[in-house]
């Protein structure tokens, strides 16, 4: 176990270094920088600021400075917020996480149920219906879905707030505040969920169909077990296992999706400020965010692998 863990951890390093190289040099290829955003500066002032922010150094040097800081957990200093990137991320990341996790939870829950039902009732009306429905969810651009949601559920029906995370000026505390935030979450979570649900449902369905055909399911039936036990205890467990590794890939996708939903719903999350940071070329923040996601992805990958190792006795590491 330890050996395996250490090995996996060591594997992370080249990946992360590769990611850091890619991130840094891709961003450095982008035309424009933070200082140029302010066309109002005189050439002298620009040169002064370049020196002040270290933009006059060669790219390679800057990379190593950045990497060096990275190792110390220092993501740099946001030009636009004039604060350390870690602080800025800390301000915004949690609200992103709340939505991401709520939607992750919903996506998996719904996909699981639908996947199992339509797999056990393959080619039934329900199966076809759900197939169409799921494809439907996959076929609407998320920004558009967001707009429709705002228009109907917020503006016309007034069921949910149109955006943001809290009601400004309402000054809720305690439960009322939690309820307020929950209400604001509903629409973005729905949109984000719709974004991911299609693929996952299809995945569970095919996985389930595969598992149901296997010998041990036949054995379980031959033992006279109830159909529910056969499906949920024997089949589902086996179908779920490979899905654990999917969790890791979901994450970057979720944050990508968050950029859209947070933008549309004014959710005070990291996705929303990413766009803003991009438009002013706040590279430390952009790189910090991207690197953060990369690290998160790699780590969740690792965790998924380890979880898989724990959950599946066949690969269980002793």
């Amino acid at each position, binding site marked *: 176990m330890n*050996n395996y863990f*250490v*090995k996996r951890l*060591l594997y992370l390093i080249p990946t992360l270094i590769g990611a850091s190289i890619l991130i840094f040099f891709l961003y450095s290829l982008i035309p424009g920088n933070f200082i140029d955003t302010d066309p109002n500066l005189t050439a002298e002032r620009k040169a002064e600021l370049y020196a002040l922010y270290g933009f006059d150094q060669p790219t390679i040097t800057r990379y190593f400075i950045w990497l060096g800081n990275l190792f110390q957990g220092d993501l740099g200093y946001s030009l636009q917020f004039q604060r350390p990137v870690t602080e800025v991320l800390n301000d915004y990341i949690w609200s992103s996480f709340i939505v991401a996790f709520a939607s992750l939870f919903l996506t998996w829950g719904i996909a699981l149920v639908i996947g199992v039902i339509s797999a056990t009732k393959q080619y039934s009306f329900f199966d076809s219906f759900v197939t169409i429905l799921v494809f439907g969810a996959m076929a609407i651009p998320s920004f558009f879905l967001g707009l429709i949601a705002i228009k109907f559920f917020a503006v016309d029906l007034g069921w949910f707030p149109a955006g943001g995370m809290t009601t400004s000026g309402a000054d809720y505390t305690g439960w009322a505040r939690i309820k307020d935030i929950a209400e604001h979450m509903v629409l973005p979570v729905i949109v984000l969920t719709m974004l991911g649900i299609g693929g996952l449902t299809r995945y569970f369905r095919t996985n389930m169909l595969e598992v149901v055909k296997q010998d041990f399911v036949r054995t379980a039936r031959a033992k006279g077990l109830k159909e529910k036990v056969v499906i949920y205890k024997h089949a589902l467990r086996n179908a779920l296992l490979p899905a654990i590794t999917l969790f890791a890939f979901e994450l970057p996708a979720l944050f990508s999706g968050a950029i859209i939903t947070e933008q549309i719903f004014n959710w005070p999350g990291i996705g929303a400020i990413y766009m803003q940071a991009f438009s002013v070329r706040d590279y430390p923040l952009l790189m910090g965010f991207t690197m953060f996601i990369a690290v998160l992805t790699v780590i969740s990958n690792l965790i998924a692998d380890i979880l898989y190792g724990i959950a599946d006795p066949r690969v269980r590491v002793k």
Partner: protein
Amino acid sequence: MTQESLIQVHQLEKKYKTKEKMFSKNNEYIKAVDNVTFHIKEGETFGLVGESGSGKSTIGKSILRLQDISNGEIKYHGKNVFELDKKEMRHLRTKMQFVFQDPFSSLNPRLRIGDALAEPLLDHGLATKKNVKEKVMETMELCGLPTYHINKYPHEFSGGQRQRIGIARAMIMNPEFIVADEPVSALDVSIQAQIINLFQELQEKRNLSYLFISHDLSVVEHLCSRIGVLYLGTMMELASRDQLYENPQHPYTKALLSAVPIPDPTKRRERILLKGDLPNPASPPSGCKFHTRCPFAMDICKNETPVFKEREPGHFVACHLVDQEKANT
């Protein structure tokens, strides 16, 4: 029996790494083949028998250099197969062929059989585009395949026919030697007989040599002239067919033979039942590897590896019991 030996396998050893450990050099190995020596004469059928995991297939594949070996030599006409360069090896491929166990997975599902058969001829320049079809049809007929099947795909054939295709593909370049790895074990009884007969016919017509790998002792008895018995990668007994089936020496061979069910209800007999399962090949028993299951195991068997010795002309056994009996008489 003074034919020249076509294949010589000398002290063959094949190790697989099982677990890679990061910071230690003591990787765990499985010895799939452990110090195996035998030869195959021209025109004969040599049988390899043993249970699953005994290393039969590994030996077969090693002879064709389909995988690397860890130690030892394999010679074809006296030339070490593993020392050939790419070109020589490519040439050798036309001489030595392989017939797979699973006729379905060994055929490319996306290739018509005519194309599959023509391909090696064209690739090796053994036929021109003009005469290739003729040669293909010739081989198909030889292997009992109606030539009107030439444009069909593997999935359109039955299991038996597919195995005929597999044999035809092996035969198309007119090889000297064929390794047949459990070629009939996936087939039904009635089809099995057809294929076994085909092997015999081809040998008669083309003076082929076979290495016939099987777990089915009755099939091996029917086909092979000499037979080696493998247990956990080690050769336990090697003898001619008559010697082996009429006078088996090694307790393992005896047990194997007695375990084969005989299709005659009047002949229900007492068996030598082996205890337990095959040991884990990653940590094989010390001494004689068979001692853990041997009904006649002695103390010496646990500690000393018996020597693979020729007891009678052409009859080799590795067993302490036999040694003792010899000593006693």
